[in-house]
């Protein structure tokens, strides 16, 4: 019973992890939380205080900023459809249901676990200068006082903060999903993804965005070249290493490409990701500041476009023909590349950043194939390699941070993701196994894991 195994393993894994959670720089503010809850109980003060706030001159900017972050959350949400379609488009038809299912699961699971644990683990409010490394999480909704719904909190409400960050959280697992596609055992992946999103992602997240040790040292990662993409890319690398390549990919020292089954799906995915990135980066301004948000839109679009051109011409020159799938990866590479410095790199350097990322990703994909690390969608190259490059680009093409700390930061985050994944995915390998049987892989995971075909129409007429 795979499903029971899943629930059990999840339980055990979670509790093991929880018990290990003693590096925390902070106690759960249980008492405070309790107070706050009580305070909310009598609702009148909240309503009155909130109404009063909405009368203040700052309320307009707060309202706009809050709305912008919510719209950004919606844009980041649609990136999950982008990932789902890119991955399934670049996979074989016989594994399409499985890929779509994983994406449906990841976004559902990601939002819930981020509420249950992740949000408060990632934004623990490390004490100033504490150089925090780890904090316990908890139910996100500990309080609902007026402080959390007005500019006392930020330029947006506590709820907005949660939903915007929650949409980011699931991304890390989705990146891994692409790299392990077409061979990973569903239940194991679900357990791994759950642990990664719930526990690992908020830890590195807290190092920077939660005010932890990296932020204390001046690391700069605007919207997550390292914290989201690098993190996902290195987790993907670990999993791809443990899992091994798909059957038939590397035969007798030759690389045999396994073509994606639908280029329209892949293209839809990349355009949706490009769209969503306006929220991913644009929302990361964390308010609606006209100058900054518009600058971020411009750098993001320029880098994406330059990345697309970079890949198109690189593939044309070095690989004989203009490769659509490379052009698509190039756009994503440009986007990942600019993510760390979208507000800190001037437009002309944004073009350069995108262009380099777009060229880099082509060679990176070829490299990983050479060393026989099989990554069906190029996730390690796009998110991992370009994530590192993007983080360094902040120092190379802007002055928001020094090269040293950027290097330390991106490597620390990548290393943590890599090691965490090695351990957890390794444990899964030796316990319940991480790979489907060769028969199932040959027949396709859709039938094996789901008993469902993605395009069953022909057989259909016979039921």
């Amino acid at each position, binding site marked *: 019973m795979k499903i029971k195994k899943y629930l059990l393993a999840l339980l055990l894994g979670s509790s093991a992890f929880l018990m290990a959670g003693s590096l925390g720089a902070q106690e759960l503010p249980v008492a405070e939380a309790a107070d706050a809850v009580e305070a909310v109980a009598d609702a009148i003060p909240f309503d009155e205080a909130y109404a009063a706030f909405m009368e203040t001159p700052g309320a307009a900017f707060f309202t706009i900023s809050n709305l912008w972050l919510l719209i950004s959350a919606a844009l980041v949400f649609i990136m999950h459809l982008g990932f789902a379609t890119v991955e399934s488009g670049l996979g074989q038809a016989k594994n399409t249901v499985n890929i779509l299912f994983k994406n449906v699961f990841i976004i559902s699971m990601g939002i819930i676990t981020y509420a249950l644990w992740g949000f408060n683990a990632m934004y623990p409010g490390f004490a100033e200068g504490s150089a925090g490394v780890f904090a316990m999480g908890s139910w996100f909704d500990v309080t609902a006082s007026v402080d959390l719904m007005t500019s006392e909190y930020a330029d947006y409400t506590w709820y907005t903060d949660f939903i915007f960050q929650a949409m980011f959280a699931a991304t890390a697992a989705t990146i891994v999903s692409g790299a392990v596609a077409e061979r990973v055992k569903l239940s194991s992946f679900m357990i791994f993804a759950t642990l990664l999103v719930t526990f690992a992602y908020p830890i590195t997240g807290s190092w920077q965005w939660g005010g932890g040790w990296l932020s204390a040292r001046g690391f700069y990662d605007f919207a997550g070249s390292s914290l989201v993409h690098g993190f996902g890319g290195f987790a993907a690398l670990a999993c791809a290493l443990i899992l091994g390549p798909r059957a038939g990919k590397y035969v007798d020292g030759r*690389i*045999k490409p396994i073509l994606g089954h639908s280029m329209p799906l892949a293209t839809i995915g990349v355009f949706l990701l490009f769209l969503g990135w306006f929220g991913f980066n644009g929302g990361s301004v964390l308010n609606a500041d006209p100058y900054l948000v518009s600058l971020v839109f411009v750098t993001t679009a320029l880098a994406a476009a330059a990345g697309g051109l970079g890949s198109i011409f690189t*593939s044309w020159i070095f*690989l004989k*023909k203009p*490769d659509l799938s490379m052009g698509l990866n190039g756009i994503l590479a440009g986007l990942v590349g600019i993510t760390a410095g979208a507000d800190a790199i001037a437009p002309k350097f944004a073009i350069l950043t995108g262009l380099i990322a777009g060229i880099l990703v*082509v060679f990176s*994909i*070829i490299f990983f194939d050479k060393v026989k690390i099989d990554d069906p969608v190029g996730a390690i190259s796009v998110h991992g390699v370009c994530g590192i490059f993007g983080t360094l680009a902040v120092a190379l093409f802007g002055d928001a941070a020094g090269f040293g700390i950027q290097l330390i930061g991106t490597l620390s985050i990548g290393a943590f993701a890599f090691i965490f994944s090695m351990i957890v995915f390794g444990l899964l390998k030796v316990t319940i196994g991480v790979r489907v049987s060769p028969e199932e892989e040959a027949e396709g995971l859709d039938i094996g894991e789901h008993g469902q075909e993605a395009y069953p129409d022909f057989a259909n007429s016979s039921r």
Partner: protein
Amino acid sequence: MKLVKAVIKPFKLEEVKEALADIGIEGMTVTEVKGFGRQKGHTEIYRGSEYTVDFLPKVMVEIVVDDADAEKTTDAIVKAAKTGKIGDGKVFVIPVESATRIRTDETGPEAL
């Protein structure tokens, strides 16, 4: 009766159909297939690794005709489907013992 089984280039289907109509052939069944032969396909590059597209899209046309018509059917197909370039395909003739029209239960040449 004979089954004339031809593998042709997809864009030649229309011309073959018309050529057959010209000689009075009224029925045929067509299948999308992939062919492998001397026309070796291209060496392509996908995401940086080279591979050979061995199997090329072809169309298979199957027509059951009276013994007497097999040759002229073959000829008509050969003529219509020829481009003179490699990969034009083949025509095979296979003996058929009986044919039945489902709608009327007619059998033999009447069924065609």
